[in-house]
Structures are given as C-alpha cells and as structure tokens.
C-alpha cells in the first residue's frame, strides 16, 4: 500500500510560484483561491539574512484531523497512496475541516464544498506527476511513495537534512522540506 508524500528542496526553490499557477490551471481553481502557496521565512539581520522559501500545500497527514472531524465522511483517506481527499458531493460546507487543519490548507470553494490539494490524484492515476511537480522550473519538488525505500522521495530523505512543518501538531505531515 503506497503512502504518497513530497520532498521539496528549499536549496533549489526560488519561490517563483509556478507550482501555484500550474495547480490553478490544472485544477481550475477559482479566482481568489489557491490550493498551494509560497512561504518565505526571513531570519537574521541585514546583511546576514537567511531565507527559507517553501512551496506549501495540504500535508496529506498520516493522522489527518480534517478527516476525523468531518461529520459526513466527505473528507477521507483515498485508497491510492493514502491521499487525503474531499468528496464534494458529500461535503456540506460546515468548515470544520478548515478550522481543524493546522496548515490552513483548506478553503471553501465558491460552489460550497471544502477544497484543497489532491496531490493531483487524477494525474497520478494516469502515471503522471502532480502538476506542481511537473512544472517546477527548478526541479525542486519530488513526489513518490514514502513506504518504498527506493523511491525518489525516500532516497532524498535518507540522504539530506530535512524538516516538516508544525511537527508538534501531531498530525504526521508528509511534505518534507530538504535544507
């Protein structure tokens, strides 16, 4: 059973937002909303400044609070890759999941349902990479099965320093940032 995740190389990332734009066109994300976004964390004092630029999105957590809090079962863990998805037809737009997500990854689509990153499961099912990964001009994004020790992501996590966002939230996120 695959468990999909991402390893994103912050050393290569330039924060160009191509991942955000590609997601928007691939998934027809409506104006005013995005399923992924860029965070630039600035530390230090000029000129000894340090940046960490991250492409962020739903972490497809191993222990997803958005799924456990959903009253209708719309938020669920998909069979393929344990990807966290929303069944728009079952969603009543109660926003419980929006509030429960420590990453702010969800929003209510103008059509009334909770929306977020799907890891482009419709592409993955066809053997394609998620749109954000496929478009990245810096090749900083890697997608694959965390349970397969020979996958691209597993190899990178084994060899590079990395961290996740908000580990203390206890949700076991699956987006890793290589530093």
């Amino acid at each position, binding site marked *: 059973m695959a468990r999909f995740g991402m390893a994103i190389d912050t050393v290569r990332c330039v924060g160009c937002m191509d991942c955000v734009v590609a997601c928007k*066109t691939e998934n*027809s994300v409506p104006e005013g909303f995005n399923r992924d976004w860029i965070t630039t964390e600035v530390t230090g004092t000029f000129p000894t400044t340090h940046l960490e630029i991250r492409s962020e999105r739903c972490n497809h957590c191993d222990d997803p609070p958005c799924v456990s809090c959903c009253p209708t079962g719309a938020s669920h863990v998909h069979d393929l890759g344990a990807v966290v998805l929303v069944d728009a037809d079952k969603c009543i737009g109660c926003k419980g999941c929006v509030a429960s997500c420590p990453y702010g990854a969800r929003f209510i689509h103008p059509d009334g349902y909770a929306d977020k990153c799907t890891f482009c499961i419709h592409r993955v099912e066809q053997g394609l990479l998620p749109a954000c990964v496929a478009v990245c*001009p810096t090749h900083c994004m890697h997608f694959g099965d965390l349970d397969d020790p020979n996958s691209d992501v597993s190899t990178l996590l084994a060899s590079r320093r990395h961290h996740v966002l908000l580990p203390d939230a206890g949700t076991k996120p699956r987006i890793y940032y290589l530093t």
Partner: protein
Amino acid sequence: MSTYSRRKFLKISAATVTVASGAAGAAGAAASAKAAAAPDKPSKRAAQGVQRIPTYCDICFWKCGAIASVRDGVLWKIEGNPEDPLSRGRLCPRGTGGIGAHFDPDRLKRPLIRKQERGQEVWAEVSWDEAFAYIATKMHAIKETYGPESVAMFAHGIGGNFLKHTLKAFGTPNFAAPSFAQCRGPRDVGFRLTFGEDVGSPERTDIKNAQCLVLIGSHLGENMHNSQVQEFAEAVGNGASIIVVDPRFSVAASKARHYLPIKPGTDLALLLAWMHVLVEEGLYDKEYVAAHGFGFDQFAARIASCTPEWAYPETGIDPAVIRETAREMARHRPATLVHPGRHATWYGDDTQRSRAVALLNALLGSWGHKGGFYAPSSMDVPGYPYPAYPKPAKPKLDNPGMRYPFAHEAISTGIREATITGAPYPIKAWFTYATNLIQALPNEDETIKAIKNLDLLVVVDVIPNEIAGWADVVLPEAVYLERFDDLNVELFREPFVALRQPVVDAPHGQKPNWWMAKKLAETLGLAQYYPWKDIEEYLDHRLTAAGMSLADLKTRGIVRGAPQPTVVEEGASLAFETPSGKIEFYSLQLEKAGFDPVPVYTRHAEGPPASFRLLFGRSPVHSFSRTQSNRILSDMMDENEVWLNADMARRMDLKSGDYVCLRNQDGVVSNRVRVKATERIRPDCVYMVHGFGHTARGLKHAFGKGASDSQLVTRYATDPLMGGTGMNVNFVTIEPEAARG
C-alpha cells in the same frame, strides 16, 4: 572546424515530438467555469475531449515552446513542450498562467478611434475598415507634407515583424525598441567592444556548467527568464559557488556563498578592484590572455591603482571580501561566469560597467569555455522574398550625426526627442506594437510632450494600457494563443525552429498582427508587398525553402537541428570580430572616439537628505506592465510593495502593510503603495517591482493597484557611448498616504 561566432546550420535531427491529439485528461475535482468574457460567437473548435496543440509563448520575449490543452472547446492549460530547448518541457509561472491573457475580461475587443482629447480615453468603436481608412488618410497626409520618414514605430517582440514590413514599404527608416536604450543596450555594446560580439537574447551563458557564478544586480529567480532560472537552479543544486552583488538580499543572494551588499551605483569600483586583484596576484588566465588579448599591459597599468582598499569607501565592501571573492573566481576559472545581466541601464556609465564585466570574464578565460559563454547556433531559414523597399530620402533620426557613436540599434528616446524638437526632421506618426511606452520610457512628461506633437498615434496591443490611452486609433490584437506569428529562429545552445499557431479563437474578433499589417498595406496601396494570401502561405513558403513544412511544424511545434560544438572543450574555436581580432583589454576604438579605453570609475551623485535611491526589478509572475490584468497572475501578486530596510521602517514608525506614497526629487508623488519592512535591503535605497500602479481606466482590475516606478523615473543619465537611459538616478522620500494631493 567551427569558429566561435554566430553560425547558422540546417541539419534537421531525427528528433520528433509526439503531440497526441485527443489524449485523455481527467478533469480536476473542481472544474469551475472560467470567468471569461462572453465571446461574440461560439468557438468553431467545440470538439469534445482534450486537444493538445503546440505553439510558443509570448508572455515575455523568451519564446518558450509550449503545448496548450483545449478541453471541450475551452482553453484549459498550457505546458512546456518537452522537445523545446528553451523550456525543456517546463514553462515559467508567467507562461503557465498565460491562458489568463485569453480570458482577461479587460482586454481590448474592437478597433477604436479617439473621440475626445488625447489621454481622455474616450473612443468610438469602429469597424476594421474604418480604422484602416482613418490611419491611411492620416499617413498619406503626413507623407504629402513631411515625407514618409516622418512615421516611426516602436515595437517589442516578434509580433512587430509584419507591421514593420508594412511601414518599411511605406518608406520610413525609423524603428526602435525600448529593449535597447532602456534595457540591454549598454551590455551588448560593452561586450561588442570587448569580444566583438554581444551576448544575445537568450543570453549565451552556460550557467548550468558554471562552477562559480557571479551575479551583479541580476536577480535570477525573480527575473524569470526560463532557461536561465532552470540552469541557475541546476548550478545551485550542483554546489556551484554563487557570488551575489546587490543592494537587496535577492532570492539569488539567499543561495550565495558570498553576498556583497554593495552601495548602489558603485559596481564599477568593485569590478575594477576584482580585476586589480586578479592581475596583481597573477591569478588571471595568463595563457588565454596572451593568446587572445589585445592591450593587456596598458589595461593592467590603468587599473594598478584600483586596489580593494581604494574600492572600500566607495562600495562599502570589505577589502578582505573583495580579495577573497576574486580568488574564489580564479579558483574555478574558466568555469567562472560573471553574468552580464540584462536590464543594464542604471547610471549612465553602463556601457563602461558592462565592459568591465566583459573584461573580468576575459581575465578568467570564460568566453568560449564550458561554464562561461558558449557559441550559439541557429537554423538557416530564409526570409520571404519580398519586393525591395523604397529607399528613404532621409536617414533615420534617432541618433543624428552618430552623437552616440557605439549605438548599433536605434535609440527609442532619440525618436522621442526628435518628435519633441522636430529636428533633424519632424516625426508626425507613431505606431506602437506591444510596448507600453508610458511605462517603458523614462520621464513620462517627455513622452506625452512628444505625443502631443503627433498627427497620428496608432497602438496595437491586447490590453488597454497607458499608451493606448493616448492613442488616436487602437487596434485590438488577438493574444498569442489565438494567432499565427512569424517563426522563431533563435540563436541558442542548439538550432531549432518553432511555430506559433492559434489554439483557440479570439473571443471578440480581435485580429492577429499579420492580418492588420497586410490590411493596412492594402489600404495604403502597398498590396504588392503582401504577395501571400495568408500567413500560412507565408510560413509554408519560408519553411519549404528551408527543407521543412508547415504541416510538420503544426504537429510538432518545434523542429531541432543538429547540435554544434558550443565551447572550446567540444571543439569550437575562438574568433573575435573586434578591430584587432582579439579581446580588447585596451580599446583603441574608444580612445579614438574620445572615451576611456579602459573603464574608469566615477562617483555618482547622491540624493537629497533623508531620501532613498529608487531601485526597481522584476517579479517571477509578471512581465513588464502587461500582465497585471491577467487574473491568474494577479491572483499570485496583484500589487507591488516598496521594500524598506526594517531598521529604517522602525525609525520611521512604519510597518509592513502600511500604505505610503513616494515623492521623488522633482516633486512627483506616486500612487499609494504598501510598505514591505524587511531585512533584505540596505537602508539607503528602496525597491519596487516594475509594472504596477496602472492609471489606464480600461484596466479595471489593475487600475490603481500599487505604484509605478516609471512615474517616479523623471530623471535619467544618458550613456554617452550608446544613448542608453540610466534610470537608477532617482531618489524618493516616503510620506503618509494622506499626503497625496
């Protein structure tokens, strides 16, 4: 044996692009309707399923090969063409968001003729025939009174080719692009004077193989020239040593081993000091310089006093750091690339600064070597055999008497000046193609003054931008996804030809540039200059002459030629088209013309007390002032900010998000703009992304969002060598928003 100069090849490789039509593509979960303006008529291509159509991008001038997907007759997305050497299958964010140009509800829809005073933006919608009849009547009258030379054209991008052809047939020699005197001109002249060739566009920089990359004010990653950014990331990933010189801690600076927070305007002092160290410590490539250099000893003597200690009070860079970085460059030579930059019009001595960049590269032996500057090649595709143009009775007037002796392209601000003064002869009509002169040229007042002297201003564009606001006639163009264009035959790492073809219909009957140019020629009585029926006939003629076919290009989008040796390591040889046939460390051409034969540093004027030097640059999600109404890209960034040093902000009681206005040294006050208080910039300057602060009312979505740096660039320092307009010579103070009056 191939030589190291511009070469053309016609060897079509067996590489094929598979562009499957009707490939299945499941819709995303959230397939919501696009906010498209209602089209005049239903699309002819209402085919079901997904069609994938290759074309090339036009959101910037890089012209990346792309494949657009149309789903059930509606434009869905656009991706890089894997066979394209420029995009390598991955477009930049602007290219990916390019479909927003098709859906932009603010775009120009129908031909317009002005009904009130210029600049009032009041027009009547007219038919295409009326528009061309109006233009032709005015042009005939201008020709009668002043001669055909009194028509000038400003263009940006490949789409201007056909209109230029029509106006050449009409008899004018006056064509210019702001991309020379307002952008890359000084760099190209500096490199020509040194190596006999410029770096071209796309630049011939072998970034991916560089072991040491030096960026001086060049903010790759924010400046999103696709191939360069891809290669930059590759170099970073390979562990290349990156040295960044910038008053602002750019994204590139965050990847650097050495970040040099230089005082603005002093880059030439640093360059001279670096060269001094390389010569003084004997670290330069002696063999390369001995074999290919001209005038090295005189050069060395001239920079002997330019020590790091001399440069320190100018630049603010510690002499030890200057030495250390010079040695770092030498350690990796010849795979050390001192990037030539692109937007080089900063302080008015920009050609000499660019020459210093060229000379530093020459000392490192990078020109012609792997990891330095490679030799590009292109396919040989003959032009269309048109009848000869009439010979203009008067010479072009942008640079009378070669006042700027090293300008090898026309100077747009020279045409503007002639339009204001009427000398050496009057200019009475302007055509602009895809260039918003109000934001592209410095000093908006001078541009408006020139426009007021015109009998005719015709603007061809896709959006109602500021220059369109001043037009007598506005011709709405179909966006690149809706039209054929000329072939892209680019000099690059390997030869290729790319086709732009329509993917969807223009929603309101907007027309392609070639159609407008042909129609205008016919209305002017110049039909003999358009022997072809439509552009497909033109394209097929050119392609057939080159041993290719339009039908093939339509399927593949790109045809690649056989790669040629690009660097000495691959068998290319070095040749320099300078007067000496060598790399000119000492330039007799410059000396003869009365200029410094070796670059000399001069201190630039400081601003008034409590003012900040105004710097500007690029965002990865916008191109110039032409993408702010693209709803996909505006969702990424819909207004710019003024970057202010965090400590200065604290002292001024400002915080990020506060709205302020900027007042420049001449009393010009900007639109309101949010403060970005940041540890990423020096305290003596502020920075803005160019292209915002639109004042054109037709740009409903972008109107009034952010501030325009161009509006604040009232002063410019003209480069005496080539007429470039240095624009980093303006200073601003920061005022509360309420001060705007």
